[in-house]
């Protein structure tokens, strides 16, 4: 049973010895980045930070899909919602992300037809049942969700569903790692690589990155003991001076990844340059709908005129996503003062997996509450 499985990996009997091992072996001060928002939340919720020695700092990376979506993309979504006879279908946590002048939530309150869906299947159903309207799905996310959106486009093509389209703001992880390493002021000693993304793309997808930078790269699962295992491994690699590209989540991730999903992905999408919030343009880090499926590309179907995007003033989301800053004062002047989950200024405070939202909910001078 799935739950029993997850409780197994949450077990104190597994976690405590790993935490002890980390405390015993860690000498150098290191900065490890968990790229994925699900890891960030799991780390906070399980209290892992309180178990680590002061030598190990954890940074949260650009792995929350909502958070890295560029301001101009959010503005485009809002503009799409304002088009005549359009129904916008979106995953829930995009609703409250502020664009330059509005948010999807506010647009919905003003009468635009914006619907929260839990899968692309729901979006296709809406298109079938509303033949007189255009249904646009907001394609946001990484390699994890992109194949399901590719599959939806294939389904629409097969069933000649003409009133369905997707605006693709998808991003890919390996290219973002490269960009992070090249940023000024960013210092990262090791990467905890995302489990779900890696299920799709496989361990080998990180090989070129690892070969170039030779720092510990460990794919981790999401249970606390998975995460501690990955941290223990990175500490050991750094202390011994022998970095590895390692799969610490072998029960789900293979070297090759999910070939079927990769095939669907490649059938519908092709790599394209993409803008990431906080990082800027990263070459070939996005997914564009191929010419063969251009009729399902909402970016082409609708002629959108967008004024220049205006990121929120004083918002440090960009620096936070790249590990240059952490949310609490004095590093972000807005955090908890004017930027809260009720009234978020930047996207990292919106998504439950955003770094700022995780800090808001779970951070309290954790070091002072240690057990030992």
């Amino acid at each position: 049973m799935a739950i029993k499985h997850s409780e197994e990996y949450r077990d104190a009997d597994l976690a405590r010895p790993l935490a002890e091992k980390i405390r015993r072996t860690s000498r150098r001060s290191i900065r490890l980045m968990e790229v994925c928002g699900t890891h960030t939340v799991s780390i906070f919720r399980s209290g892992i930070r309180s178990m680590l020695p002061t030598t190990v700092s954890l940074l949260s990376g650009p792995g929350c899909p909502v958070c890295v979506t560029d301001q101009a993309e959010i503005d485009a979504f809002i503009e799409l919602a304002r088009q005549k006879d359009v129904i916008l279908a979106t995953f829930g946590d995009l609703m409250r992300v502020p664009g330059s002048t509005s948010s999807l939530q506010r647009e919905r309150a003003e009468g635009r037809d914006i619907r929260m869906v839990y899968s692309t299947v729901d979006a296709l159903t809406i298109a079938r049942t509303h033949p007189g309207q255009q249904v646009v799905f907001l394609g946001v996310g990484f390699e994890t969700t992109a194949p399901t959106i590719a599959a939806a486009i294939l389904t629409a093509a097969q069933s000649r569903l003409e009133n369905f389209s997707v605006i693709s703001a998808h991003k890919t992880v390996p290219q973002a790692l490269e960009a992070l390493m090249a940023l000024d002021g960013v210092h990262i000693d090791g990467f905890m690589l995302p489990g779900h993304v890696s299920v799709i793309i496989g361990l080998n997808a990180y090989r070129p990155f690892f070969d170039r930078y030779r720092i510990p790269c460990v794919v981790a699962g999401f249970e606390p003991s998975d995460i501690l295992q990955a941290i223990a491994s990175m500490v050991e690699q750094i202390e011994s001076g022998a970095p590895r590209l390692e799969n610490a989540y072998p029960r789900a991730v293979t070297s090759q990844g999910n070939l079927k999903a990769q095939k669907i992905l490649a059938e519908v999408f092709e790599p394209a340059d993409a803008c990431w919030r906080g990082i800027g343009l990263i070459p070939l880090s996005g997914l564009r709908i191929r010419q063969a499926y251009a009729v399902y590309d909402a970016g082409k179907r609708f002629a959108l005129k967008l004024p220049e995007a205006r990121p929120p003033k004083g918002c440090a989301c960009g620096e936070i996503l790249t590990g240059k800053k952490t949310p609490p004062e004095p590093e972000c002047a807005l955090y908890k003062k004017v930027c809260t989950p009720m009234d978020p200024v930047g996207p990292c405070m919106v998504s439950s997996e955003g770094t700022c939202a995780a800090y808001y909910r779970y951070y309290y001078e954790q070091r002072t509450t240690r057990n030992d």
Partner: protein
Amino acid sequence: MLLPAFNNAILSELNDGAIFELAGVRMAFSTDSYTVDPIFFPGGNIGELAVYGTVNDLAMCGAAPKYLSAALIIEEGFPVEQLETIIAAMGQAAEIAGVTVVTGDTKVVPKGMADKIFINTSGIGVIPDGVDVASHKARPGDRVILSGTLADHGVSVLARREGLSFETSVQSDTAPLNHMVRAMFAAGRGVHVLRDPTRGGLGTALNEIAEASSVGVRIREDRIPVKPAVAGLCELLGYDPLYLANEGKLIAFVAPDDAEAVLQAVRADRFGRDAVVIGEAVAGPPGKVFMDTRIGGTRIVDMLAGEQLPRIC
């Protein structure tokens, strides 16, 4: 928002209900309006929710609920069979809780002026001699009793909400708590705080108590009962069961000497079989709630801020 306009000493206590003395008897008086979506959910409907909600608000004041009023605002065109089902559920709920609905009102409003049906219930109850519970009465050392599994109602409603097509066996826990509370008082005098963690869940309720009482609270993750199906759905959608609603659970802060007897009294009630001590009140830091996690770490349990939204991946 109401506080400045109605400024008075009873309201400003901000309990689940008002507590006052009338003709020499200490009483509790409470009112609540119910607007749940969907109105029918696994394990119940808005009708019993409206009755048990007010019954429980009174019980959390330490009162034995006696009389209820019921006012229904119905949208024109609302199916009569559904209305009958809801009213029958209210009647049955009143019987189970042992309260009498003594006055009522129905209004039909034009289509679009209300969403299907809204129900308001108000109730009064008598507070027995010697009973004195309030949010600010927790003391360091008090044991924290939770009467059963967490987040059943929140997940049952979530699972049935439009657009979320999950099949789940989770039933709402909607239930009256007044019989349980009576048994708790009979078992020990050391019951200091009672609270039903409805909207905002356990996490929010514990924070409010910690703040009102100027104590810290320390709970243990491995003691908190969550049904596997509830944990599974929360995991999938990125929800935290600590912040989802319960409609038939209570938390009690009880003096350590009485904790075991009160716990046994809760467990003897049909709605409290899974009750456990989940932690205790501590001296500090005041107003903060900490949780010892299953794996041996510690983290803060803060107030829920903003609504939880399902995540992308």
